């Protein structure tokens, strides 16, 4: 059962055509926090338009630093800015940041506990045509191991905007992951957003789907299709991967026998990995089936075609859930 009223979701959730790129939500949120807080600085590595930080840059050029194509330096400069008491956002493509500056993030940012917010756009296979080199599918795993780091993967443009505000108001390193592909805006200003607290958008007794990013909407559509066949799935927007919502996972592990994770990331070390860690330490009786990219590099193609091929669209999730249910006695 969809919790449209309780979670303040849009009424025409399944038929809406209002699709916007998550990066727009990031850009909008950044502009808002930039206006409210004069300590907000932004740095980027030659991708200001693609990451939407150009909106901030146009308004606040004095608090914007164009680094050039130098992601390692970008992380260090962001740390230096933060160590002056500022809130430094650094924004680039995930394949390169954290892809090629993990050491700088580890030492200059996390070890120092510098107030740096890392934004990565162009995540996952939905980057599409650029191909495997640009499809970051390992970034969450890379960052999840770092102390002091929090990780947020918003599900739509509105949640991305709220996430920017939330991480701005919380001291310390944070990672926010957005994609280029457009996704239906189905949450509203009133939909709750709290770091570390997953949002349950749909109730169901047969399985609980924990999703993040673009996969939340796809999972909601999948749940509707499954419902028509008599399979009732809960859908949970697990926007915070670190700290993971321990209580919510255990609650659903008691309510259903099957948990499913769905993410646009390798099945190792991301959302699925985080849930597996929680489940393995408790006696719940539930099992977890992880869905995402199954230990492979992907390829060029239209985003929608790729989502279909790798079964990360609604139909693919339906298939995955049905298969997973076979393993339940």
């Amino acid at each position, binding site marked *: 059962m969809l919790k449209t009223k309780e979670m303040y979701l849009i009424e025409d959730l399944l038929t809406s055509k209002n699709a916007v790129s998550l990066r727009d939500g990031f850009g909008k949120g950044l502009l808002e926090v930039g206006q409210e807080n004069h300590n907000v600085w932004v740095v980027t590595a030659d991708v200001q338009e693609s990451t939407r930080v150009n909106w901030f840059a146009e308004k606040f050029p004095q608090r914007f630093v164009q680094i050039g194509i130098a992601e390692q*330096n970008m992380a*260090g400069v962001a740390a*230096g800015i*933060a*160590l002056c008491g500022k809130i430094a956002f650094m924004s680039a493509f995930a394949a390169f940041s954290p892809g090629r500056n993990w050491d700088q993030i580890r030492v*200059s940012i996390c*070890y*120092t506990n510098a107030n740096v917010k890392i934004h990565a756009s162009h995540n996952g296979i939905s980057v599409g045509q650029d191909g495997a080199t640009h499809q970051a599918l390992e970034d969450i795993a890379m960052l999840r191991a770092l102390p002091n780091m929090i990780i947020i993967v918003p599900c739509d443009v509105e949640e991305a905007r709220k996430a920017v505000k939330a991480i701005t108001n919380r001291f310390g390193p944070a990672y926010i992951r957005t994609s280029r592909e457009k996704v239906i805006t189905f949450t509203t200003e009133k939909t709750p957003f709290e770091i570390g607290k997953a949002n349950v958008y749909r109730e169901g007794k047969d399985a609980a789907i924990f999703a993040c990013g673009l996969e939340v909407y796809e999972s909601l559509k999948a749940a509707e299709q499954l419902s028509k066949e008599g399979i009732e799935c809960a859908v949970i927007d697990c926007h915070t991967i670190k700290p993971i919502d321990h209580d919510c996972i255990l609650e659903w592990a008691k309510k259903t026998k099957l948990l499913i994770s769905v993410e646009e990331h390798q099945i190792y070390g991301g959302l699925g990995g985080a849930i597996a860690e929680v489940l393995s330490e408790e006696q719940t009786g539930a099992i977890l089936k992880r869905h995402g990219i199954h230990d492979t590099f992907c390829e060029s193609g239209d985003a929608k075609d790729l989502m279909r091929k790798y079964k990360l669209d609604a139909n693919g999730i339906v298939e995955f859930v049905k298969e997973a249910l076979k393993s339940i006695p």
Partner: protein
Amino acid sequence: MHKKITNIKQLKLIANTIRQDVIRMLLEAKSGHSAGSIGLADIFSALYFNVLYHDPKNPSWPDRDRLLLSNGHVAPVLYAAMANADYFPKEELMTLRKLGSRLQGHPHPGSLPGIENSGGPLGQGLSQAVGMAIVAKAERKRWRVYCAMSDGEHDEGQTWEAIMLANKYKLNNLTAIIDRNSIQMDGMTEDILPLEPFAEKYRAFGWRVIEVDGHNIAKFIEACEEAKAVYERPTVIIAHTIPGKGIPYMEYLSEWHGKTPSKEQADEAITLLEEERKRIEEE
């Protein structure tokens, strides 16, 4: 604010004390980097007792000059200089690298007040310094940013990324200080990965370059002052030093980069440094 010492003889004596402290710390810790730390004693005496505007009793004073250490492995000289400047009790120097110590193997701001940055993986410090200098310049702050670096860490590409950005933002409030001791872990810098023509490289990247004898405290202070009068560019002071300077068995030898003295070697070093101290006093 810390009172500046202008008497060179006094600064030389402090450098001598720092060297002795470093030897005792490394003997006690049984691990750490000797040659670079000893070679930098004169520069750190000059920095903490003359060049920097800082307040050991108020380490987070907002208007202080920032000294970042990029090659964090020379932490012993930093800690010894700070203890002598009264940031913390000198007894604490003997806790270096031990469990529960504020003196981590490589510096950590969260552990010890007065530490500005974490540097361990080489090549990260200048980027952090550039970030700070950009903020200070944009906000018209009067404090300066100093970044102490090694020559070896210029092997790291990140260092050159930061050098380019400092030029772009014309960071005249930034002074990089390079310990040009020509050694690195596996041998001489010019054998491992040649840096020369080093000064020319910096000039080509838009920096003002000043080369000094890193053991001539007066000249080093003069170079720091000169950097303040450069308005359009960042300045790099390439300080030529002798690794292990003052302890003959250690001087010039890359094998002393990452090892510590035995009890006998430490005793010999202290004896030699005491003789040196008498010579300075008689000057």
